[in-house]
């Protein structure tokens, strides 16, 4: 954006003042560099204390334990669930329960992604507290 000398009249043509534009661009640059660091999302779960007195949660009829089995199968207190409609079935189960608490248990050879799917489906079904069952 050099300044142009005037034409035949010998005057000057003022050009755009670039300084504010450079300021804005630098601010944008810095803002994007900083903002990328934050803003992560996740699923909040509870974990039991170490060496809990009982390795399993109390198997009272009140507690629901969702077991994640290989092959996309799920068992809720030993009753099989339809894996493709997991969220809907969990929602139906929890609709009548005041305590939206679910324990999620998976065997060691499952992949983390499958466990996340179960936790995510439970959260989508309205479960408020998800407890991860420790291995024993």
């Amino acid at each position, binding site marked *: *954006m*050099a*300044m142009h*000398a005037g034409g035949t009249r010998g005057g*000057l043509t003022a050009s755009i003042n*670039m300084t504010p*534009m*450079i300021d804005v*661009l*630098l601010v*944008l*640059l810095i803002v*994007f*560099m900083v903002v*990328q*660091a*934050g*803003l*992560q*999302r*996740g*699923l*909040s*779960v*509870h*974990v*039991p*204390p*170490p060496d809990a007195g009982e390795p399993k949660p109390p198997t009272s009829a009140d507690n629901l334990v969702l077991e994640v089995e290989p092959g996309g199968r799920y068992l809720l207190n030993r009753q099989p669930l339809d894996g493709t409609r997991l969220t809907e079935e969990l929602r139906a189960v929890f609709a009548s329960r005041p305590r939206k608490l679910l324990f999620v248990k*998976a*065997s*060691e*050879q*499952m*992949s*983390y*992604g*499958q*466990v*996340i*799917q179960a*936790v*995510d*489906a439970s*959260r*989508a079904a*309205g479960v408020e507290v998800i407890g*991860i069952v*420790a*291995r024993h």
Partner: protein
Amino acid sequence: MGRDLVTRIRTPHTGIDVAPFIGAVMTLLIVSMALTPAIACGPKLPRARAAVPMKENRVTLGVDNQGRFWIDDVANPGPVPSRHLAARVGSALAAHPAEERDVIYLKADVGVPYHVVQSALDAVRANGIRRVGLIVGPADDPLPVDL
């Protein structure tokens, strides 16, 4: 440039030509916008629809697709041997103020075997932490946050 003494024609001072500078800045801006999500990836996070935003400045335990553990410990970069995991989580926690020790985040790769994740959770539990935030990536059809 300046006054030409011979011909006595007054030419204006030209300032710095800023057009290339602006081109460079805009290129930097666009490149950083495009590359930063790709660089700051870490493990391949699983996708979840019901994820909620997580608070910042919490101890983050990472597990990559080879099952190695990483802690957001700037002083000791590099993977953590599993036998030291609980101790290193403890020292990472000690470096945070008390109000940032309520939850530990777990950033594990989607394909990690669950027993590796359970080892990570054991290290977290051994430090007295009861809440874990499982960090996930965005889903194609996320659910509204107020679940």
